[in-house]
């Protein structure tokens, strides 16, 4: 994406490189299965949709983790699980050292302040019957952050922070464009001064020029407020622009996780390589030679009955017998740097897939 790859953020956090890293959010073996009834035969059988099937990652304060993968691989579910909008089937979520994976709603309430969501669709995420003042003022009221008479000032301050006219506090969402609505959603998330924001494809519903504006806004806020992000996206360009670390998901599992440079410059998992090779390259327009494109055959298998062993084996060109028998573990492979883990039996570095940034800016 042109907007994303033009510049890269200056302050890349590489907490993995030193040993003082203390995670803000730690997710271990997170599982979410949805029961579905199937009515074939005489009696209904209950199957499990394995939406998220054992996902582990962590996020340090001020760090940005990108979750990428194609539709239906469990990115959004993971985001919702982390914020506890849905209950995990099993697994642990630790926020700030406290276990919240199975906590009750009442116990979660104080934690809710530190963790916020930005939603994908700005037309769905704002209550059409409330003014901007109410929408952004509600979090202040719920958590009793600002005395009542100062609430409106704070709302206007927040509007200014996200680049909207503070005079528009009395307007309704239907009077704003998509980009402006997304900014209102961001202002609402920021109202409680969170430490972690789970952004669920925050720009994919916006058109490209607005995407850049919103991304730059998030970048600015992240630097100013030292926010940690879990950034769910399927746009690899946006993730490269914004994220310190990237986790690639396939069918409810993380197949490769590493620092941005690891994933984009030295991807080892065939699925990551296929994803990267599918991203459009602007340099081709400028006359550069088209890079090799890896085409994946077929569809993502059903999460109700995922393939044995490695889940990617049904579409992988390297698949051998061992892939069907043994599930590859997510671990550091030879040639990978610290913090770069790959779940594959036959990892292999391919370094020519992503657009090189020098070429783009030239």
């Amino acid at each position, binding site marked *: 994406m042109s907007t994303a790859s033009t510049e890269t953020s200056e302050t890349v956090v590489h907490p993995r490189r030193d040993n003082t890293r203390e995670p803000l959010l730690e997710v271990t073996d997170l599982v979410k299965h949805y029961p579905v009834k199937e009515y074939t035969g005489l009696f209904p059988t209950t199957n499990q949709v394995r939406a998220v099937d054992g996902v582990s990652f962590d996020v340090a304060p001020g760090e940005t983790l990108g979750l990428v993968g194609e539709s239906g691989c469990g990115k959004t579910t993971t985001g*919702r699980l982390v*914020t506890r*909008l849905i209950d995990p089937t099993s697994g642990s979520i630790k926020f700030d050292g406290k276990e919240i994976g199975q906590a009750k709603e009442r116990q*979660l*309430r*104080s934690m*809710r*302040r530190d*963790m*916020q*969501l930005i*939603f*994908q*669709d700005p037309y*769905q*995420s*704002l*209550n*059409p*019957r*409330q*003014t*901007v003042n109410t929408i952004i003022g*509600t*979090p202040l009221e*719920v*958590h009793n952050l600002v005395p009542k008479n100062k609430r409106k000032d704070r709302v206007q301050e927040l509007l*200014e922070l996200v*680049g*909207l*006219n503070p*005079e*528009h*506090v*009395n*307007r*309704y969402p*239907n*009077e704003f464009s998509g*980009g*402006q609505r997304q900014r209102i*959603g961001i202002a*609402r998330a920021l109202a*409680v001064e969170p430490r972690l924001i789970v952004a669920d494809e925050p720009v994919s519903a916006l058109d490209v*020029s607005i995407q850049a*504006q919103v991304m730059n806004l998030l970048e600015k806020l992240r630097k100013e407020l030292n926010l940690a992000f879990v950034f769910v996206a399927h746009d690899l360009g946006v993730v490269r622009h914004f994220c310190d670390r990237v986790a690639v998901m396939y069918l409810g599992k993380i197949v490769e996780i590493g620092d941005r440079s690891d994933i984009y410059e030295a991807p080892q998992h065939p699925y990551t390589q296929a994803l990267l090779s599918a991203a459009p390259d602007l340099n081709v327009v400028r006359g550069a030679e088209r890079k090799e494109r890896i085409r994946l055959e077929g569809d993502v298998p059903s999460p109700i009955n995922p393939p044995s062993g490695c889940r990617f084996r049904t579409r992988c060109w390297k698949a051998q017998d061992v892939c069907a028998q043994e599930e590859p573990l997510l671990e550091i492979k030879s040639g990978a740097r610290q913090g770069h883990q790959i779940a594959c039996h036959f990892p292999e570095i391919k370094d020519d897939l992503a657009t090189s940034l020098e070429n783009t800016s030239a």
Partner: protein
Amino acid sequence: MSLGAGTEATMVADADERAPGPAPREGKSPTQIALERLRKDKVAIACLFVIGFFVLVAILAPVLVSIAGVDDQLHLDQVNPLTGLASFQSNADHPFGVKARTGEDLFYQWAYGARPSLVVGIAASALTMVVGVTMGLLAGFLGGVVDTVVSWIVDFLLSLPFLLMAIGIVPIALQRFGNPDSSGFIEEGRESTIRFIVLICVLVLFTWPTVARLIRGEVLSLREREFVQAARSLGMPTKRVVMRELLPNLTGPMIVNLTILIPAFIATEAGLSFLGVGLKDPTYSWGQTISQGVTFFDSYPIWMWIPTISVSLLVLALSLFGDAVSDAFNPQTRR
């Protein structure tokens, strides 16, 4: 916002927005937009006048009858002792004529008959909405066992035949609450009060399931909307999510339903009174007047036609108004 001409204007619109513009104006809520659209609808305004006229008749019934100089006494002198009918259809003393045999004034009964129609229509539909919306909200938002139980009750009630039940319930209620003496006689005032209450109860009992079902569906789709998720992720208590986030978004379907229910109930009240299970003297109602007058539709037509036309006009006006309201609240219709 000061926008220049050309495409550059839209490119910089965002930055421009911070520039000092005209004084801030109040925003328009979806309800305000709907009301504005309603105000432009000529049919709706005409209907409002018709509805207003009947409401005024009901409220001002005592004034109207004193202006017309009519009362609820028997006027045996006004009817021909042989045929039992009045010799006139309408005259200055009795503008809508008099009843056969007793000579009771029909204008008096028409003016006071507007009251139960409107009271039953409004009270029953308001109660229906309260019960239906509450149950729908509970079923839709809580889900699980509550949803199953409510849905089961809804299905059960909707499977009962309404007319049969209505006709059956009235005598039972009269026996149960009317304290009839040994000969089965029930005090007149008491009977008419019981009939009034039972009528409203029957209407509510058999209509709230429809409303609950509609609201439940609406809530099921609303609660998955991201703004409800956002409210939950803010740690908002469930009660507040329902009251502040869900309920305001249900005003559209609620108002539309209300405007459909009121005329339906008025028509049903008239129908039940016609069948003899609705209201009875000394509570006058149009349905009851129609049922009495229908015997003389040939020889004394004014008796039947005045209440018939009134009830039809009121129901028609209310229904058209309901249509207009539902159009106004529906963002998909642009007329």
